[in-house]
């Protein structure tokens, strides 16, 4: 048996790629999201590789890297996010996965991307990295704020205990932080395309030690308006019309997720946005959650709003070209300012 890895052609081998994904990652509608995710990304089309056994057309695994512009300190860099990593059950002996993981390093070694990163959600996803001697650079934690107890009580006690739900919901309402409003800041729902003011906001916020995804208008329009699988709501905070910050929310099955919170004066304006999103979600959502890198400066903001850390949701593992500037940047205490926005592929 001979296993080898080769680049996949997104046009002529689209069907093969979708077939491998459908079988091995069945929880996503790959058909529906393919063109959007693999081709329409404003940062460039995905690069994909197949693991094959013996012949080119016997495909036993696939991995893709989705280009992503990232702020690395004060510089904008082309990077790649590894995703849709799928290996046939019969071939999960680590060898094929190692070959595919190494393939994702090639564009980095060739200088096309400053680095690539993967966000394995569980231990099994770390196995190839452990074999390669790589450790996680950071981890993502889930923070949650319970808003209602209806569903919890219904699942435990049945439908005849609605008075208990009312009591529970009232207690939760008392428990959360009091509303935070800033006199001269207006919080509003944002509808329609993201304009150039969002790009300007992105460029105005630089931290020489941080790594975060770029948030250009083009990226936001693609990510949040054109996503064929998810719908998002956006709240903006403005002073005299000037965009200060925004929050992106995704609601699914009673769970609201703050996908992103970004902007200026974040310790005050961010608190105001969180307060607004709690008010928005309380009537209909059971829980409000967000995902933050362990070194995120937003952690304090959420914990002050009574969110509590629940679990580690993913690790961040980055590959850089050995002895490169990027590699030195990571070694010298880089801060991963990641939210769900950087992790969702």
């Amino acid at each position, binding site marked *: *048996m001979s296993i080898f890895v080769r680049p996949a052609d997104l046009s002529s081998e689209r069907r093969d790629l979708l077939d491998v994904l459908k079988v091995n990652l069945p929880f996503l509608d790959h058909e529906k999201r393919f063109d959007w995710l693999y081709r329409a990304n404003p940062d460039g089309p995905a690069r994909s590789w197949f693991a094959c056994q013996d012949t080119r057309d016997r495909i036993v695994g696939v991995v893709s890297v989705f280009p992503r512009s990232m702020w690395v300190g004060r510089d904008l860099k082309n990077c790649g996010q590894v995703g849709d990593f799928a290996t046939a*059950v019969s*071939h999960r*002996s680590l*060898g094929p996965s190692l070959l595919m993981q190494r393939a994702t390093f090639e564009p980095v070694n060739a200088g096309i991307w400053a680095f690539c990163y993967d966000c394995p959600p569980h231990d099994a996803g770390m196995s190839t990295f452990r074999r390669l001697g790589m450790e996680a650079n950071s981890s993502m934690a889930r923070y949650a704020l319970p808003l209602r107890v209806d569903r919890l009580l219904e699942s435990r006690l049945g439908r005849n205990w609605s008075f208990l739900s009312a009591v529970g919901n009232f207690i939760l309402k008392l428990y959360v932080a009091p509303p935070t409003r800033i006199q001269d800041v207006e919080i509003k729902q944002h509808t329609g395309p993201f304009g150039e003011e969002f790009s300007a906001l992105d460029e105005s916020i630089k931290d020489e030690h941080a790594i975060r995804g770029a948030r250009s208008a083009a990226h936001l329009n693609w990510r949040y308006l054109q996503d064929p699988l998810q719908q998002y709501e956006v709240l903006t905070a403005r002073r005299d019309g000037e965009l200060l910050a925004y929050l992106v929310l995704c609601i699914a099955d009673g769970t609201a997720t703050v996908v992103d919170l970004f902007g200026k004066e974040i310790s005050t304006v961010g608190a105001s946005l969180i307060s607004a999103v709690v008010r928005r979600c309380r009537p209909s959502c059971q829980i409000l959650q967000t995902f933050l890198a362990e070194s995120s400066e937003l952690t304090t903001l959420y914990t002050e709003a009574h969110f509590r850390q629940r679990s580690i949701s993913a690790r961040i593992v980055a590959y850089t070209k050995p002895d490169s500037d990027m590699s030195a940047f990571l070694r010298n205490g880089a801060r991963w300012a990641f939210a769900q926005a950087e992790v969702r592929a």
Partner: protein
Amino acid sequence: MSQVRTTNTQLREFILQKFPLARKRGVKDGDLLLENGILDSMGVLELVHFIEQEYGILVSDEELEPDNFQSIDKLAAFIQTKTGRGEQPSV
């Protein structure tokens, strides 16, 4: 009384000890470990560590191919090829 344990027995004991699905379903020497979901990539990593420690061999990346990890029989054959022996005396 000294007891000779075969490589298969040692591997089976390790797999039963480490992997809950193997304990639940039981595992025979010819059972497909990967396809039955008894081993995943993390399990392979643990198994490789065990094999390297127990038999004093190094498993290269190229040897992490599905054929070698398909079943206890296949694993034992792989170890025997690497070590040039079939049985391991135990104390």
